[in-house]
Protein backbone atom coordinates (compact mmCIF):
# COMPACT_ATOMS: atom_id res chain seq x y z
CA UNK A 1 0.00 0.00 0.00
CA UNK A 2 3.06 2.25 0.20
CA UNK A 3 3.95 4.83 -2.37
CA UNK A 4 7.49 5.48 -3.63
CA UNK A 5 8.30 9.14 -3.34
CA UNK A 6 11.32 10.61 -5.07
CA UNK A 7 13.20 13.27 -3.12
CA UNK A 8 15.81 15.50 -4.71
CA UNK A 9 18.41 17.74 -3.07
CA UNK A 10 18.44 21.20 -4.62
CA UNK A 11 20.70 24.14 -3.98
CA UNK A 12 18.86 27.41 -3.81
CA UNK A 13 19.85 28.92 -7.11
CA UNK A 14 17.93 30.25 -10.02
CA UNK A 15 16.77 27.75 -12.61
CA UNK A 16 17.65 24.64 -10.63
CA UNK A 17 14.02 23.51 -10.28
CA UNK A 18 13.46 24.00 -13.99
CA UNK A 19 16.42 21.69 -14.69
CA UNK A 20 14.61 18.92 -12.83
CA UNK A 21 11.34 19.44 -14.68
CA UNK A 22 13.22 19.57 -17.99
CA UNK A 23 14.84 16.18 -17.33
CA UNK A 24 11.45 14.72 -16.40
CA UNK A 25 9.87 16.13 -19.54
CA UNK A 26 12.67 14.81 -21.77
CA UNK A 27 12.07 11.37 -20.33
CA UNK A 28 8.31 11.50 -20.69
CA UNK A 29 7.69 11.40 -16.97
CA UNK A 30 4.54 12.86 -15.50
CA UNK A 31 4.44 14.49 -12.06
CA UNK A 32 1.49 13.30 -9.95
CA UNK A 33 2.15 15.30 -6.83
CA UNK A 34 4.88 17.47 -5.46
CA UNK A 35 5.99 19.51 -2.52
CA UNK A 36 9.05 21.64 -1.93
CA UNK A 37 10.62 22.18 1.48
CA UNK A 38 13.29 24.80 1.71
CA UNK A 39 15.83 26.56 3.93
CA UNK A 40 17.92 29.60 3.08
CA UNK A 41 20.61 27.39 1.50
CA UNK A 42 18.93 24.35 0.07
CA UNK A 43 15.61 22.72 -0.68
CA UNK A 44 14.21 19.23 -0.90
CA UNK A 45 11.88 18.55 -3.77
CA UNK A 46 9.50 15.66 -3.12
CA UNK A 47 7.79 14.12 -6.12
CA UNK A 48 5.43 11.32 -6.94
CA UNK A 49 5.89 10.47 -10.58
CA UNK A 50 4.46 8.16 -13.20
CA UNK A 51 7.65 6.06 -13.36
CA UNK A 52 9.83 6.14 -10.27
CA UNK A 53 12.81 4.11 -11.55
CA UNK A 54 13.02 5.95 -14.83
CA UNK A 55 12.85 9.32 -13.12
CA UNK A 56 15.44 8.37 -10.52
CA UNK A 57 17.92 7.06 -13.09
CA UNK A 58 17.51 10.09 -15.32
CA UNK A 59 18.10 12.50 -12.43
CA UNK A 60 21.08 10.55 -11.10
CA UNK A 61 22.67 10.53 -14.53
CA UNK A 62 22.40 14.29 -14.45
CA UNK A 63 24.23 14.49 -11.15
CA UNK A 64 21.37 15.01 -8.73
CA UNK A 65 21.32 13.44 -5.28
CA UNK A 66 18.06 11.55 -5.06
CA UNK A 67 16.42 9.40 -2.45
CA UNK A 68 13.49 7.06 -2.08
CA UNK A 69 11.01 7.44 0.75
CA UNK A 70 7.91 5.40 1.50
CA UNK A 71 4.89 7.59 1.89
CA UNK A 72 1.19 6.83 2.20
CA UNK A 73 -1.52 8.23 -0.08
CA UNK A 74 -4.94 8.63 1.43
CA UNK A 75 -8.21 9.59 -0.17
CA UNK A 76 -10.22 12.04 1.80
CA UNK A 77 -13.63 13.46 1.05
CA UNK A 78 -13.40 17.06 -0.11
CA UNK A 79 -15.49 18.54 2.69
CA UNK A 80 -14.99 20.27 6.06
CA UNK A 81 -13.52 17.94 8.68
CA UNK A 82 -12.09 15.47 6.18
CA UNK A 83 -8.47 15.98 7.20
CA UNK A 84 -9.24 16.50 10.84
CA UNK A 85 -10.88 13.10 11.05
CA UNK A 86 -7.73 11.39 9.78
CA UNK A 87 -5.33 13.37 11.96
CA UNK A 88 -7.39 12.58 15.04
CA UNK A 89 -7.22 8.86 14.32
CA UNK A 90 -3.46 9.05 13.88
CA UNK A 91 -2.97 11.09 17.01
CA UNK A 92 -4.97 8.61 19.07
CA UNK A 93 -2.70 5.83 17.83
CA UNK A 94 0.48 7.76 18.54
CA UNK A 95 1.56 7.97 14.88
CA UNK A 96 3.57 11.09 14.06
CA UNK A 97 3.30 12.90 10.77
CA UNK A 98 6.78 14.00 9.62
CA UNK A 99 5.31 15.99 6.77
CA UNK A 100 2.34 15.93 4.40
CA UNK A 101 0.99 17.57 1.30
CA UNK A 102 -2.26 17.39 -0.63
CA UNK A 103 -3.69 17.66 -4.09
CA UNK A 104 -7.22 17.64 -5.44
CA UNK A 105 -8.12 15.15 -8.14
CA UNK A 106 -9.34 16.44 -11.46
CA UNK A 107 -12.57 14.50 -11.37
CA UNK A 108 -14.65 13.57 -8.42
CA UNK A 109 -14.99 15.26 -5.09
CA UNK A 110 -12.15 13.82 -3.11
CA UNK A 111 -8.67 15.07 -2.33
CA UNK A 112 -5.50 13.00 -2.05
CA UNK A 113 -3.21 13.45 0.93
CA UNK A 114 0.38 12.27 0.91
CA UNK A 115 1.71 11.43 4.38
CA UNK A 116 5.15 10.65 5.68
CA UNK A 117 4.72 8.84 9.02
CA UNK A 118 7.37 8.01 11.57
CA UNK A 119 5.98 4.43 11.49
CA UNK A 120 4.67 3.77 8.02
CA UNK A 121 3.25 0.26 8.45
CA UNK A 122 1.41 1.07 11.66
CA UNK A 123 0.03 4.20 10.03
CA UNK A 124 -1.46 2.21 7.17
CA UNK A 125 -2.92 -0.30 9.59
CA UNK A 126 -4.68 2.40 11.63
CA UNK A 127 -6.13 4.03 8.53
CA UNK A 128 -7.40 0.80 6.99
CA UNK A 129 -8.91 -0.37 10.27
CA UNK A 130 -10.97 2.82 10.27
CA UNK A 131 -12.13 2.42 6.68
CA UNK A 132 -10.01 5.24 5.28
CA UNK A 133 -9.13 4.66 1.63
CA UNK A 134 -5.40 4.14 1.20
CA UNK A 135 -4.43 4.45 -2.45
CA UNK A 136 -1.88 1.85 -3.60
CA UNK A 137 1.24 3.14 -5.38
CA UNK A 138 0.40 1.54 -8.74
CA UNK A 139 -2.93 3.29 -8.82
CA UNK A 140 -1.50 6.67 -7.89
CA UNK A 141 1.31 6.53 -10.49
CA UNK A 142 -1.20 6.06 -13.27
CA UNK A 143 -3.90 8.44 -12.10
Amino acid at each position, binding site marked *: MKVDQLSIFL*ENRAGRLAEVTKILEDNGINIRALSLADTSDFG*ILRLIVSDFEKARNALKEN*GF*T*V*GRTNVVAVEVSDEPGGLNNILTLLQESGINVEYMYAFVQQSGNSAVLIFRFDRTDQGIEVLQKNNITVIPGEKLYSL
Partner: protein
Amino acid sequence: MILDQDLETLPREELRELQLTRLKSLCERVYHNVPFYKKRFEERNITPADIKSLEDIRHLPFTEKQDLRNHYPFGMFAVSRDNIVRIHSSSGTTGKATVVGYTKRDIKNWARLMARSFMAAGATPQDMIHNAYGYGLFTGGLGAHYGAEELGGAVVPISGGGTRRQAMLLRDFQPDVICCTPSYSLFLAETAEEMGIDVKKLPLRIGIFGAEPWTEEMRRDIENRLAITAIDIYGLSEIMGPGVGIECHEAQDGLHMMEDHFLVEIIDPETGEPLPPGETGELVITTLTKEAIPLIRYRTRDLTSLNVAPCKCGRTTARMQRVTGRSDDMLIIRGVNVFPSQIESILIETDGLTPHYQLIVERHGNLDILTVNVEVNESVFSDEIKNLQRLESKVQKNIKEFLGVSVRCKLVEPKGIERSVGKAKRIIDKRNES
Protein backbone atom coordinates in the same frame (compact mmCIF):
# COMPACT_ATOMS: atom_id res chain seq x y z
CA MET B 1 65.41 51.28 24.24
CA ILE B 2 66.98 47.87 23.79
CA LEU B 3 66.47 45.29 26.53
CA ASP B 4 69.44 43.02 25.84
CA GLN B 5 71.73 45.67 24.41
CA ASP B 6 74.77 43.36 24.19
CA LEU B 7 72.99 40.53 22.36
CA GLU B 8 70.68 42.55 20.15
CA THR B 9 73.45 44.78 18.82
CA LEU B 10 76.24 42.20 18.48
CA PRO B 11 78.47 42.86 15.48
CA ARG B 12 77.35 40.32 12.87
CA GLU B 13 80.70 38.50 12.89
CA GLU B 14 80.40 37.90 16.62
CA LEU B 15 76.77 36.91 16.22
CA ARG B 16 77.78 34.31 13.65
CA GLU B 17 80.41 32.91 16.02
CA LEU B 18 77.81 32.61 18.76
CA GLN B 19 75.40 30.94 16.34
CA LEU B 20 78.05 28.44 15.23
CA THR B 21 78.91 27.47 18.80
CA ARG B 22 75.23 27.00 19.55
CA LEU B 23 74.57 25.12 16.30
CA LYS B 24 77.33 22.62 17.05
CA SER B 25 75.97 21.99 20.51
CA LEU B 26 72.43 21.69 19.11
CA CYS B 27 73.57 19.03 16.63
CA GLU B 28 75.15 17.04 19.44
CA ARG B 29 71.97 17.26 21.49
CA VAL B 30 69.55 16.19 18.78
CA TYR B 31 71.87 13.48 17.46
CA HIS B 32 72.13 11.83 20.85
CA ASN B 33 68.66 12.51 22.23
CA VAL B 34 66.19 12.43 19.34
CA PRO B 35 66.10 9.11 17.43
CA PHE B 36 64.42 10.86 14.49
CA TYR B 37 67.41 13.16 14.00
CA LYS B 38 69.98 10.45 14.56
CA LYS B 39 68.36 8.51 11.73
CA ARG B 40 68.25 11.57 9.48
CA PHE B 41 71.92 12.32 10.13
CA GLU B 42 72.88 8.72 9.41
CA GLU B 43 70.89 8.69 6.19
CA ARG B 44 73.00 11.64 5.04
CA ASN B 45 76.22 10.11 6.33
CA ILE B 46 76.94 13.01 8.63
CA THR B 47 77.69 13.39 12.29
CA PRO B 48 77.61 16.52 14.45
CA ALA B 49 81.40 16.77 13.99
CA ASP B 50 80.85 17.58 10.31
CA ILE B 51 79.38 20.96 11.20
CA LYS B 52 82.41 23.24 11.05
CA SER B 53 80.91 26.47 9.76
CA LEU B 54 77.46 28.05 9.54
CA GLU B 55 77.47 27.29 5.81
CA ASP B 56 77.56 23.59 6.66
CA ILE B 57 73.97 23.90 7.75
CA ARG B 58 73.01 23.12 4.17
CA HIS B 59 74.13 19.53 4.81
CA LEU B 60 71.60 19.16 7.60
CA PRO B 61 68.16 17.70 6.95
CA PHE B 62 64.99 19.78 6.93
CA THR B 63 62.24 19.23 9.48
CA GLU B 64 58.67 19.40 8.25
CA LYS B 65 55.41 19.92 10.10
CA GLN B 66 54.53 16.39 9.03
CA ASP B 67 57.52 15.07 11.00
CA LEU B 68 55.99 16.54 14.16
CA ARG B 69 52.62 15.07 13.28
CA ASN B 70 54.19 11.66 12.64
CA HIS B 71 55.75 11.74 16.09
CA TYR B 72 52.57 12.88 17.84
CA PRO B 73 52.49 13.62 20.67
CA PHE B 74 55.96 13.63 22.26
CA GLY B 75 58.18 11.69 19.85
CA MET B 76 60.36 14.66 18.90
CA PHE B 77 61.16 15.70 22.46
CA ALA B 78 64.87 15.76 23.34
CA VAL B 79 64.51 15.67 27.11
CA SER B 80 62.75 13.32 29.50
CA ARG B 81 59.24 14.09 30.65
CA ASP B 82 60.58 15.10 34.09
CA ASN B 83 62.19 18.15 32.56
CA ILE B 84 59.12 19.38 30.73
CA VAL B 85 57.23 22.16 32.49
CA ARG B 86 54.74 23.18 29.77
CA ILE B 87 52.98 21.68 26.75
CA HIS B 88 51.38 23.63 23.91
CA SER B 89 49.62 22.21 20.90
CA SER B 90 48.14 23.26 17.62
CA SER B 91 44.54 22.36 16.92
CA GLY B 92 43.55 19.27 14.98
CA THR B 93 42.62 15.64 15.37
CA THR B 94 45.20 12.90 16.07
CA GLY B 95 47.76 12.86 13.29
CA LYS B 96 47.01 16.47 12.42
CA ALA B 97 48.03 18.30 15.56
CA THR B 98 51.57 19.33 16.43
CA VAL B 99 52.61 19.22 20.06
CA VAL B 100 55.52 21.13 21.58
CA GLY B 101 57.07 21.13 25.03
CA TYR B 102 59.18 23.53 27.08
CA THR B 103 61.76 23.08 29.81
CA LYS B 104 62.12 25.65 32.58
CA ARG B 105 64.93 27.30 30.65
CA ASP B 106 62.86 27.32 27.42
CA ILE B 107 60.08 29.20 29.24
CA LYS B 108 62.64 31.62 30.66
CA ASN B 109 64.17 32.27 27.24
CA TRP B 110 60.76 32.70 25.66
CA ALA B 111 59.70 35.22 28.32
CA ARG B 112 62.94 37.12 27.74
CA LEU B 113 62.50 37.21 23.97
CA MET B 114 58.92 38.40 24.37
CA ALA B 115 60.10 41.07 26.80
CA ARG B 116 62.67 42.16 24.20
CA SER B 117 59.83 42.27 21.70
CA PHE B 118 57.69 44.48 23.91
CA MET B 119 60.57 46.88 24.33
CA ALA B 120 61.34 46.89 20.61
CA ALA B 121 57.69 47.83 20.06
CA GLY B 122 58.17 50.83 22.35
CA ALA B 123 56.71 49.44 25.58
CA THR B 124 58.31 50.13 28.97
CA PRO B 125 58.17 48.47 32.41
CA GLN B 126 55.73 51.21 33.46
CA ASP B 127 53.14 50.12 30.89
CA MET B 128 49.93 48.20 31.34
CA ILE B 129 49.45 45.50 28.71
CA HIS B 130 46.00 44.35 27.62
CA ASN B 131 46.64 40.81 26.37
CA ALA B 132 43.78 39.68 24.14
CA TYR B 133 45.61 36.71 22.62
CA GLY B 134 43.87 33.45 23.48
CA TYR B 135 45.17 31.71 26.60
CA GLY B 136 45.40 27.95 26.53
CA LEU B 137 47.04 25.48 24.21
CA PHE B 138 47.60 28.29 21.70
CA THR B 139 51.00 29.90 22.41
CA GLY B 140 49.86 33.51 21.91
CA GLY B 141 48.24 34.23 25.27
CA LEU B 142 50.77 32.71 27.66
CA GLY B 143 53.72 33.75 25.50
CA ALA B 144 52.77 37.43 25.61
CA HIS B 145 51.77 37.11 29.28
CA TYR B 146 55.15 35.84 30.49
CA GLY B 147 56.93 38.39 28.32
CA ALA B 148 54.89 41.26 29.71
CA GLU B 149 55.71 40.17 33.27
CA GLU B 150 59.40 39.69 32.40
CA LEU B 151 59.40 43.25 31.08
CA GLY B 152 57.93 44.38 34.37
CA GLY B 153 54.68 45.63 32.91
CA ALA B 154 51.22 45.10 34.39
CA VAL B 155 49.43 42.50 32.35
CA VAL B 156 45.65 42.25 31.95
CA PRO B 157 45.14 38.58 30.95
CA ILE B 158 41.77 39.08 29.28
CA SER B 159 42.35 36.43 26.56
CA GLY B 160 40.15 36.37 23.45
CA GLY B 161 36.42 37.01 23.07
CA GLY B 162 33.93 39.03 25.09
CA THR B 163 34.48 42.09 22.94
CA ARG B 164 32.20 44.49 24.81
CA ARG B 165 33.94 43.64 28.05
CA GLN B 166 37.31 44.17 26.36
CA ALA B 167 36.17 47.62 25.26
CA MET B 168 34.97 48.41 28.77
CA LEU B 169 38.37 47.48 30.24
CA LEU B 170 40.20 49.55 27.64
CA ARG B 171 38.17 52.49 28.88
CA ASP B 172 38.34 51.72 32.61
CA PHE B 173 41.86 50.30 33.05
CA GLN B 174 43.44 52.57 30.43
CA PRO B 175 46.19 50.17 29.26
CA ASP B 176 49.10 51.47 27.18
CA VAL B 177 49.65 48.39 25.03
CA ILE B 178 47.30 45.91 23.40
CA CYS B 179 48.15 42.47 21.99
CA CYS B 180 45.74 40.75 19.61
CA THR B 181 45.27 39.88 15.96
CA PRO B 182 45.20 42.92 13.65
CA SER B 183 41.66 42.22 12.47
CA TYR B 184 40.42 41.90 16.03
CA SER B 185 41.82 45.33 16.92
CA LEU B 186 39.57 46.89 14.28
CA PHE B 187 36.57 44.89 15.42
CA LEU B 188 37.27 45.92 19.01
CA ALA B 189 37.58 49.58 18.00
CA GLU B 190 34.28 49.35 16.18
CA THR B 191 32.56 47.76 19.18
CA ALA B 192 34.03 50.39 21.50
CA GLU B 193 32.75 53.18 19.28
CA GLU B 194 29.29 51.63 19.29
CA MET B 195 29.46 51.76 23.07
CA GLY B 196 30.24 55.46 22.91
CA ILE B 197 33.92 55.12 23.75
CA ASP B 198 36.19 57.55 21.94
CA VAL B 199 38.94 55.10 21.05
CA LYS B 200 41.34 57.78 19.81
CA LYS B 201 41.26 59.54 23.17
CA LEU B 202 42.26 56.42 25.12
CA PRO B 203 45.87 56.43 26.40
CA LEU B 204 46.51 53.26 24.38
CA ARG B 205 49.80 53.84 22.58
CA ILE B 206 51.02 50.60 21.03
CA GLY B 207 49.40 47.60 19.39
CA ILE B 208 51.35 44.37 18.95
CA PHE B 209 49.67 42.38 16.24
CA GLY B 210 50.34 38.89 15.00
CA ALA B 211 48.98 35.43 14.29
CA GLU B 212 47.52 36.41 10.94
CA PRO B 213 48.74 38.11 7.76
CA TRP B 214 48.03 41.81 7.30
CA THR B 215 49.01 44.58 4.94
CA GLU B 216 50.48 48.08 5.11
CA GLU B 217 47.02 49.46 4.26
CA MET B 218 45.57 47.66 7.25
CA ARG B 219 48.37 49.01 9.44
CA ARG B 220 47.55 52.57 8.42
CA ASP B 221 43.87 51.92 9.02
CA ILE B 222 44.55 50.56 12.52
CA GLU B 223 46.95 53.39 13.36
CA ASN B 224 44.39 55.99 12.30
CA ARG B 225 41.36 54.38 13.89
CA LEU B 226 43.01 53.69 17.25
CA ALA B 227 45.62 56.45 17.25
CA ILE B 228 48.40 54.00 18.11
CA THR B 229 51.63 52.62 16.67
CA ALA B 230 50.89 49.23 15.14
CA ILE B 231 53.73 46.70 15.37
CA ASP B 232 54.00 43.37 13.56
CA ILE B 233 55.14 40.37 15.60
CA TYR B 234 56.06 36.93 14.33
CA GLY B 235 56.16 33.52 15.88
CA LEU B 236 55.01 29.96 15.54
CA SER B 237 54.41 27.32 18.15
CA GLU B 238 56.76 24.78 16.56
CA ILE B 239 59.66 27.18 17.04
CA MET B 240 58.55 28.78 20.33
CA GLY B 241 55.49 30.98 19.97
CA PRO B 242 55.30 34.76 19.58
CA GLY B 243 58.59 36.62 19.88
CA VAL B 244 60.65 34.91 17.17
CA GLY B 245 60.74 38.28 15.42
CA ILE B 246 59.32 41.78 15.90
CA GLU B 247 59.38 45.17 14.26
CA CYS B 248 61.09 48.02 16.09
CA HIS B 249 58.93 51.09 16.58
CA GLU B 250 61.72 53.33 15.29
CA ALA B 251 61.73 51.91 11.76
CA GLN B 252 58.62 49.69 11.46
CA ASP B 253 60.47 48.21 8.53
CA GLY B 254 60.92 44.47 8.81
CA LEU B 255 60.87 42.19 11.84
CA HIS B 256 64.09 41.82 13.82
CA MET B 257 64.73 38.12 14.21
CA MET B 258 66.06 36.93 17.57
CA GLU B 259 69.14 35.54 15.89
CA ASP B 260 71.05 34.60 19.02
CA HIS B 261 68.34 31.97 19.57
CA PHE B 262 67.20 31.22 16.03
CA LEU B 263 69.22 30.61 12.91
CA VAL B 264 67.17 31.86 9.98
CA GLU B 265 67.53 30.96 6.30
CA ILE B 266 65.54 31.67 3.19
CA ILE B 267 65.29 28.78 0.75
CA ASP B 268 63.73 28.12 -2.61
CA PRO B 269 60.62 26.15 -1.59
CA GLU B 270 60.84 24.02 -4.75
CA THR B 271 64.51 23.01 -4.69
CA GLY B 272 65.34 23.54 -1.02
CA GLU B 273 68.46 25.53 -2.01
CA PRO B 274 69.38 28.52 0.19
CA LEU B 275 68.72 31.95 -1.33
CA PRO B 276 70.88 35.05 -0.79
CA PRO B 277 69.70 37.92 1.45
CA GLY B 278 67.01 40.02 -0.18
CA GLU B 279 65.49 37.24 -2.24
CA THR B 280 62.01 36.02 -1.44
CA GLY B 281 61.55 32.38 -0.50
CA GLU B 282 60.52 30.17 2.37
CA LEU B 283 61.68 30.95 5.89
CA VAL B 284 63.54 28.08 7.54
CA ILE B 285 64.38 28.27 11.23
CA THR B 286 66.80 26.28 13.40
CA THR B 287 66.21 26.62 17.13
CA LEU B 288 69.69 27.17 18.58
CA THR B 289 68.84 27.08 22.27
CA LYS B 290 65.55 25.18 22.63
CA GLU B 291 65.94 22.23 24.99
CA ALA B 292 62.61 20.39 25.02
CA ILE B 293 61.96 20.20 21.31
CA PRO B 294 64.88 21.56 19.32
CA LEU B 295 64.26 21.64 15.58
CA ILE B 296 66.79 21.62 12.77
CA ARG B 297 65.93 23.64 9.67
CA TYR B 298 62.20 23.75 10.31
CA ARG B 299 60.28 24.66 7.17
CA THR B 300 57.83 27.35 8.24
CA ARG B 301 56.12 27.54 4.81
CA ASP B 302 56.01 31.31 5.30
CA LEU B 303 57.21 33.25 2.27
CA THR B 304 59.36 36.28 2.97
CA SER B 305 62.86 37.73 2.57
CA LEU B 306 65.65 38.80 4.93
CA ASN B 307 67.47 42.10 5.13
CA VAL B 308 70.81 42.26 6.97
CA ALA B 309 71.38 46.01 6.48
CA PRO B 310 71.87 47.98 9.73
CA CYS B 311 68.67 49.37 11.22
CA LYS B 312 68.26 52.85 12.61
CA CYS B 313 67.18 51.40 15.96
CA GLY B 314 70.73 50.09 16.46
CA ARG B 315 69.92 46.38 16.37
CA THR B 316 72.17 44.33 14.13
CA THR B 317 69.80 41.42 13.67
CA ALA B 318 68.44 40.41 10.28
CA ARG B 319 65.04 41.82 9.50
CA MET B 320 62.36 39.67 7.95
CA GLN B 321 59.97 41.36 5.59
CA ARG B 322 56.27 41.06 6.29
CA VAL B 323 55.17 37.49 5.43
CA THR B 324 53.61 37.66 1.99
CA GLY B 325 52.09 34.21 1.72
CA ARG B 326 52.46 30.51 2.29
CA SER B 327 54.07 27.76 0.27
CA ASP B 328 51.37 25.37 1.45
CA ASP B 329 47.58 25.51 1.75
CA MET B 330 47.31 26.65 5.36
CA LEU B 331 44.58 29.21 6.03
CA ILE B 332 44.59 31.60 8.94
CA ILE B 333 41.09 32.30 10.21
CA ARG B 334 40.80 34.86 12.99
CA GLY B 335 44.28 33.89 14.16
CA VAL B 336 43.66 30.13 14.03
CA ASN B 337 45.73 28.05 11.62
CA VAL B 338 43.54 25.75 9.56
CA PHE B 339 44.70 23.14 7.08
CA PRO B 340 42.19 21.80 4.55
CA SER B 341 43.39 18.28 5.42
CA GLN B 342 42.20 18.82 9.00
CA ILE B 343 38.73 19.80 7.80
CA GLU B 344 38.74 16.79 5.51
CA SER B 345 39.46 14.31 8.27
CA ILE B 346 36.72 15.82 10.42
CA LEU B 347 34.21 15.54 7.56
CA ILE B 348 35.08 11.91 6.97
CA GLU B 349 34.60 11.20 10.65
CA THR B 350 31.20 12.93 10.59
CA ASP B 351 28.61 10.33 9.56
CA GLY B 352 28.96 9.37 5.95
CA LEU B 353 30.18 12.60 4.47
CA THR B 354 32.48 12.41 1.48
CA PRO B 355 35.74 14.30 1.29
CA HIS B 356 34.23 16.50 -1.41
CA TYR B 357 34.32 19.93 0.12
CA GLN B 358 35.35 23.46 -0.55
CA LEU B 359 36.43 26.21 1.80
CA ILE B 360 35.26 29.74 1.11
CA VAL B 361 36.98 32.50 3.07
CA GLU B 362 35.47 35.96 3.12
CA ARG B 363 36.02 39.05 5.18
CA HIS B 364 32.84 40.61 6.51
CA GLY B 365 33.74 43.94 8.04
CA ASN B 366 36.95 43.11 9.84
CA LEU B 367 36.27 39.47 10.61
CA ASP B 368 37.05 36.41 8.57
CA ILE B 369 34.20 34.06 7.82
CA LEU B 370 34.97 30.49 6.77
CA THR B 371 32.24 28.57 5.00
CA VAL B 372 32.65 24.84 4.48
CA ASN B 373 30.68 23.62 1.48
CA VAL B 374 30.11 19.88 1.63
CA GLU B 375 28.58 17.76 -1.09
CA VAL B 376 25.50 15.77 -0.19
CA ASN B 377 25.71 12.17 -1.31
CA GLU B 378 23.01 9.51 -1.20
CA SER B 379 24.22 7.97 2.03
CA VAL B 380 23.61 11.14 4.03
CA PHE B 381 20.73 12.59 2.04
CA SER B 382 17.39 12.68 3.78
CA ASP B 383 14.05 13.96 2.55
CA GLU B 384 13.60 15.73 5.86
CA ILE B 385 15.02 19.22 6.33
CA LYS B 386 15.72 18.70 10.02
CA ASN B 387 18.06 15.77 9.34
CA LEU B 388 20.12 17.79 6.88
CA GLN B 389 20.24 20.78 9.21
CA ARG B 390 21.34 18.49 12.01
CA LEU B 391 24.17 17.29 9.78
CA GLU B 392 25.26 20.87 9.11
CA SER B 393 25.34 21.73 12.78
CA LYS B 394 27.21 18.53 13.58
CA VAL B 395 29.95 19.51 11.13
CA GLN B 396 30.10 22.99 12.63
CA LYS B 397 30.31 21.59 16.13
CA ASN B 398 33.04 19.07 15.29
CA ILE B 399 35.18 21.66 13.54
CA LYS B 400 34.75 24.06 16.44
CA GLU B 401 35.71 21.32 18.87
CA PHE B 402 38.81 20.06 17.08
CA LEU B 403 40.09 23.20 15.38
CA GLY B 404 38.78 25.89 17.71
CA VAL B 405 37.31 27.94 14.92
CA SER B 406 33.65 28.72 14.21
CA VAL B 407 32.66 27.97 10.65
CA ARG B 408 29.47 27.86 8.68
CA CYS B 409 28.68 24.53 7.01
CA LYS B 410 26.62 24.55 3.87
CA LEU B 411 25.40 21.45 2.04
CA VAL B 412 25.75 21.59 -1.72
CA GLU B 413 24.83 19.36 -4.63
CA PRO B 414 27.36 16.78 -5.78
CA LYS B 415 29.70 18.07 -8.47
CA GLY B 416 28.63 21.50 -7.25
CA ILE B 417 32.26 21.93 -6.32
CA GLU B 418 34.43 23.03 -9.17
CA ARG B 419 37.02 20.45 -10.16
CA SER B 420 40.00 21.71 -12.09
CA VAL B 421 41.85 19.06 -14.10
CA GLY B 422 40.40 16.31 -11.98
CA LYS B 423 41.64 17.91 -8.78
CA ALA B 424 39.15 19.76 -6.64
CA LYS B 425 39.76 23.41 -6.03
CA ARG B 426 39.67 23.31 -2.26
CA ILE B 427 40.05 26.92 -1.28
CA ILE B 428 38.46 30.11 -2.51
CA ASP B 429 39.96 33.00 -0.58
CA LYS B 430 38.04 36.17 -1.27
CA ARG B 431 39.71 38.22 1.44
CA ASN B 432 42.10 40.03 -0.83
CA GLU B 433 39.48 40.97 -3.38
CA SER B 434 38.25 44.51 -3.03
